[in-house]
């Protein structure tokens, strides 16, 4: 948790935590494991009543944040969802809401945003392409103009929440660059094929576009010039993912510490062994570092910081390497119970493992950073 929350944010955090603890405890999460959508739309709409999908939407469009910093507010929700490995399309729907609110036409904003805010409309972000196109630039879909329409062809995968989505924000190659379209999930030619997933309740799918016709009123942002918007969406999705991860880590570290204090071995609590204390001290350091770099990344995205690409990738890389390590270490410290289905630890391991690889692996993010660092001249480097 960010250590400088204001009163409004604190209240928002407590309300969200209470709601999730009451309406989506881990038993309820487990019950959704075989549900095709992985979440209940009624539950989602009740969560949206708390503001889960309005924080990045402009006030003129019916949205609003707590103190003018919607990304930082949304990070609070993501952390709370991480604590309870919650289901629900938090990141994709908010990415779509943010994009449409920032760059959609007035008609599109009024057609889509009220439903997203109310929780009736679910968004999916079709940025990833087949063969590892994880960075949102949409290698897998092309769009060509045909009169007042565009025709989309290709594949986007993996796409979160596509199975239950109403609106798809699709990144496509156009003649002059990259363009984004908001495509109704029910449009003719859209096919959604569910994928398996390491997570119990987050659902992914391959979305195929076969001569899908989209009117040019559904272009979001600049024709042929969506690169900066796509980069922003990627950053936003990664920051929310990192925030969920640190929320999950907080909870795992809490209950592992309790377990070590309660569990005795050779006549004394496990927590009293220096070998374990020192390992836990390292984990605490990694955990606080994960929080710190996530907060830095959230701030950078909130402020549209020119250094946001490298800061966000630093967060993704650091968390990718350390979050799974923390949970694996906690599994080790639990002993055999840690690798059973009945014990909740694996729910967390699943979520942080998903996040380790979904929006770029640590190595891929390091390559992104290297490209940024090594193309800069030293004189131009920030002092």
């Amino acid at each position, binding site marked *: 948790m960010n*250590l400088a929350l204001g009163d409004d944010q604190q209240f928002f955090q407590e309300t969200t935590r209470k709601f999730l603890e009451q309406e989506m405890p881990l038993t309820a999460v487990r019950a959704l494991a075989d549900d095709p959508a992985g979440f209940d739309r009624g539950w989602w709409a009740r969560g949206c009543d708390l503001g889960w999908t309005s924080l990045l939407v402009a006030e003129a469009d019916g949205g609003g944040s707590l103190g003018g910093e919607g990304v930082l507010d949304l990070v609070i929700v993501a952390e709370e969802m991480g604590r309870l490995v919650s289901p629900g399309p938090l990141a994709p729907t908010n990415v779509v809401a943010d994009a449409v609110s920032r760059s959609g036409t007035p008609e599109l904003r009024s057609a889509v945003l009220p439903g997203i805010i109310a929780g009736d409309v679910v968004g999916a972000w079709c940025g990833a392409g087949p063969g590892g196109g994880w960075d949102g630039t949409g290698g897998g879909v092309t769009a060509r103009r045909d009169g007042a329409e565009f025709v989309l062809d290709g594949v986007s995968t993996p796409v979160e929440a596509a199975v239950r989505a109403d609106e798809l924000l699709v990144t496509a190659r156009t003649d002059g660059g990259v363009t984004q379209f908001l495509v109704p999930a029910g449009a003719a030619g859209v096919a959604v094929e569910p994928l398996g997933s390491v997570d119990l309740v987050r659902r992914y799918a391959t979305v195929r576009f076969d001569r899908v016709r989209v009117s040019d009123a559904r272009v979001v942002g600049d024709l042929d010039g969506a690169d900066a918007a796509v980069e922003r969406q990627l950053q936003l999705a990664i920051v929310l993912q990192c925030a969920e991860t640190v929320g999950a880590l907080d909870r795992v570290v809490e209950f592992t510490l309790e377990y070590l204090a309660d569990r005795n071995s050779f006549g004394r609590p496990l927590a009293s062994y220096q070998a374990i204390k020192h390992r*836990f*001290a390292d984990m*605490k350091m990694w955990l606080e570092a994960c*929080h*710190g770099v996530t*907060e830095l990344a959230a701030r950078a995205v909130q402020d549209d910081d020119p250094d946001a690409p490298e800061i966000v990738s630093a967060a993704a890389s650091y968390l990718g390497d350390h979050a799974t390590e923390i949970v694996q270490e906690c599994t080790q410290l639990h002993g055999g119970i840690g690798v059973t289905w009945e014990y909740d630890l694996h729910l967390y391991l699943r979520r942080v493992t998903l996040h380790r690889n979904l929006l770029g692996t640590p190595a891929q993010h390091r390559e992104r950073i290297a490209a940024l660092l090594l193309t800069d001249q030293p004189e131009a480097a920030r002092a």
Partner: protein
Amino acid sequence: MPDQAMESVESFRLRARAWLAEHMPRRPLDAPPPDRAEDEQTWIDDRALQRKLWDGGFAGICFPEEYGGLGLTIEHQHAFTEESLPYEMPLHLNVPNFSILGATLVDYGTHEQKSKYLPLLLQGKHQWVQFLSEPTGGSDLAGCVTRADRDGDEWVLRGSKIWSTAAMSATHAMCLARTDWDAPKHRGLTMFLMEIHQPGVQVDPIKQVNGSLEFCQEFFDDVRLPPDSVVGDVNDGWTVALTLLAHERNAVGGGSPYVSGRNYLAEGADGARDLSSIALVRARGIDDDPVARQLVAEAHVLDVTQRGLVQRVTLGMGNGKLAGQAAAITKLFTATSAERKTEIRLTLAGTEAVTWPAGVETLGREAGESFLERQATSLAGGSNEIQRNIIAERVLGMPREWAADRDVPFRDVRRNAMPTAPSGA
């Protein structure tokens, strides 16, 4: 100073920018870290630079106004540091001089001590070091056996201290000594502020692995200390030492308000890019090597993460949401991250780290020699193992280790013999 009278950070920044440009010598941004502190001239230069800061009204930005400082906030200090990056600064004086010892005197000195010493420190007339570790043990600091015995009003100091930075060119030291042998170990200690160069004090340099003579060992043979040299209360020196150590962790971890200018000890914490690995990659023409790219980025990730961590921990300790001992987290991160970054530079430099044109300072040589002292940050200022104890026991509340010397009169505690000065010295 009442809030409404405090200069805004932006105004302070602009004033600092103009003053620095006019008065301080320039220094390239990608210049290597300043020379080792072994050279007398380094300290003369730094004290002269400090005097310039004092004369210009930019010394002791976060020190109390009453004692010669400016009484401003850490944001003012950060603004000044950012502006100071292209200039020579008296960086050696930051640690331990200002950020550890000056800071401790602010907390525990009497009004008279602070009035007397802090202005001299801020003017660059004084240079302080810490006499804490002993040859008998460093991590078990409270087990110190250097003794101070009362003689009338005065104290008589006997024993030895070690790992003091540049004690030969320093003027004063904070010295922890045992003053009650019947009390348990933590309750019989007193902190003294002493002059170094006086009868009975012998200062010997220690040559380190990399050839550096930066550290010293001192021997005390009936050194007489006046009554007003006690800092804090007699036999309450451990409280003062704990504060001193917390300041040290904070300084090395990158969160101290008393560090002015770039903090190479906590590289990355201030947002400055570590250019050394990038420079190595460019110099060797391996920009396109995928392994080199991964390593450069990994070093950068550690720097960015450290910056976020330091901001978080500083904020949390400031508003009470994190335990005061949480500085151990930043200290451990800084040390382990420095180890890793040293390794990265060694790898990037390849053969150039282990062989180089004779007599030439090269990036490769720097990488190789840095590796030889890789553990330095993990040992200085409380070893990584001690930080892990602190995090486990004080931050996480895990059970404390059993200790044979707890609640036992110190004279009955099994310990190492007090060393004496080498004969013939």
